[in-house]
């Protein structure tokens, strides 16, 4: 359980909140690059950390993320005309560039300096990999661009999708470090999902359904190791890294691409789940990429033209009780992504953590909350830069390894959990 005041601290990310300020120390995903496919493409509404913004790509290919509403009388710039190196409000023609600077107010005299004093709040928007990242904090403290491996391998080795999740970011994120649910909720997927099946590790997973856990601090966050019995005298370890604030990776399976997530608060009751899949050492095959597009693995099948999953709370996630009975799925919901989302959303928009009954196997979650709370308070009270801002912290990987029983996964996997360009991930 968690005290109510701490639950509020960790779940509220709007401007001026401690957790909101924490998120504003980092570059975070704002949208997918595919949403602004070309110069002068239609602007996109983006709500992030409870701020309503407009993203656009101007005639010169520059990206901008600015206040959604026109400084004149507050019309939404989503209706704007994206042309001539700026976004023009169609109501009275005020025009803004990617920095939010007003560059034209047609009702004023030619050469009037009036518009120089009109500037909308704007944040940098930079493409790294398949994602357009933004930094919403103090410009003077802007860190280096993110160095997560999935965003830096060659394009043919990586794929990223996103989906709208109708709950607070924290309960979505907590699923990412909660290794103990996999054996139950996702058991069907280990057998059938094209992006999971066939790995030797899956056998250990299925055979030993009561993993042991080790949770250890890392420079950027945590490593959560889940251990199962393997051959005589050995353990099968699955190591999940968390980099603050909201980056996690799933331990790999065989030579399948390795995947992970980034959870980004939209507002306090909604978040974006970004899901990526990449292979550090080879291009994704056509079949793998197609499987990802089709919503297999950690990805979701979305309603065409949207980032809302086809299976969602308005249709009971298309639950299939027969498939559940047959054992194809454990919960009756199809797909890893929606198996997670359906349960996380069912907890309510912000789960009441005062009512939980946690067990020792939840230690990863207990520790992560503690780290978030401490980092938010150290930032608020003493201005301490939190873990995960330093880009060296981004260069981590998940790993799945078999080790002699006496070995510590931290010692034995020092290299395995480091992202080394071109070197395949450690996986069984």
């Amino acid at each position: 359980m968690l005290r109510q005041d701490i639950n509020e601290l960790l779940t509220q990310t709007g401007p001026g909140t401690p957790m909101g300020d924490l998120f504003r120390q980092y570059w975070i995903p704002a949208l997918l690059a595919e949403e602004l496919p070309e110069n002068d493409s239609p602007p996109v509404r983006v709500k992030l950390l409870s701020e309503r913004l407009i993203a656009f790509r101007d005639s010169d290919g520059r990206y901008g993320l600015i206040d959604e509403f026109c400084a004149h009388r507050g019309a939404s710039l989503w209706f704007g005309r994206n042309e001539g190196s700026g976004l023009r409000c169609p109501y009275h023609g005020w025009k803004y560039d990617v920095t939010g600077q007003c560059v034209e107010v047609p009702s004023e005299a030619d050469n009037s300096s009036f518009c120089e004093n009109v500037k909308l709040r704007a944040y940098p928007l930079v493409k790294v990999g398949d994602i357009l990242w933004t930094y919403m904090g103090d410009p003077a403290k802007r860190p280096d661009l993110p160095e997560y491996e999935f965003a830096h391998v060659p394009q043919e080795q990586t794929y990223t999708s996103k989906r709208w999740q109708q709950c607070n970011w924290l309960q979505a994120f907590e699923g990412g470090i909660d290794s103990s649910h996999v054996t139950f909720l996702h058991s069907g997927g280990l057998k059938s999902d094209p992006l999971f099946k066939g790995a030797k590790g899956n056998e250990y997973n299925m055979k030993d359904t009561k993993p042991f856990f080790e949770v250890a601090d890392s420079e950027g966050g945590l490593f959560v190791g889940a251990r199962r019995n393997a051959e005589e005298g050995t353990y099968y370890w699955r190591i999940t890294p968390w980099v603050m604030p909201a980056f996690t990776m799933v331990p790999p399976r065989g030579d399948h691409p390795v995947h992970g997530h980034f959870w980004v608060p939209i507002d306090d009751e909604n978040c974006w789940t970004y899901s990526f899949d990449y292979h550090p050492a080879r291009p994704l095959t056509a079949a793998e990429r197609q499987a990802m597009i089709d919503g297999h693995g950690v990805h979701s099948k979305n309603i065409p033209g949207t980032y809302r999953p086809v299976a969602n709370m308005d249709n009971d996630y298309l639950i299939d009780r027969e498939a559940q009975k047959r054992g194809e799925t454990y919960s009756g919901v199809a797909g890893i992504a929606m198996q997670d989302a359906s349960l996380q959303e069912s907890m309510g928009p912000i789960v009441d953590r005062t009512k939980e009954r946690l067990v020792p196997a939840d230690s990863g979650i207990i520790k992560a909350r503690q780290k978030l709370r401490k980092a938010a308070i150290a930032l608020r009270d003493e201005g301490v830069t939190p873990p995960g801002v330093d880009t060296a912290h981004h260069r981590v990987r998940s790993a799945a390894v078999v080790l002699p029983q006496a070995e510590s996964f931290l010692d034995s996997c020092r290299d395995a959990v480091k992202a080394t360009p071109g070197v395949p991930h450690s996986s069984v």
Partner: protein
Amino acid sequence: MATLPMYASESARAASASESRYRITVPIAPARNARVIALDARSAAVARRISDGPWANARFYTCEATRGRRRADEVLLHGIDGVPAALDDMLRGTDVVVVIATDDSGGALAAAIGSACSARAITTAGVVLGDGFEADDAVAALRPHARVLLLSADESDAFELLRALRV
């Protein structure tokens, strides 16, 4: 036969904030009867500090290093008030044991306590404070038995774990 949901509260859409108001609220009784055992001098200090927290059923013990003494029936504990207690008696009626270690001096004890808990189907958690290297042996001794090992530089993790477990 599958039936179609009729009201909001009969569908997944009831995950709204307004429908959350109708969740049943009953006081949650502390379900755990926890024992916290400090394995060495530094962890004994930690246990002492957290022992006067808001605990319902948790009881705190220390045990000094007893190299060579490995059998569970030989492990002698002391309550935080100094009253001696045999491991066997102490484990009676408990369902979770949290072991705290900061260095290797408690390695042999860790093994004895861990296997005693395993034999009694008592869930065991280990909190290992420090940078992880000073307590290598203690970690290795706990590993086969502890459902969870929390390796942490942060002493307050022991407190947070106990609070999260509602002990």
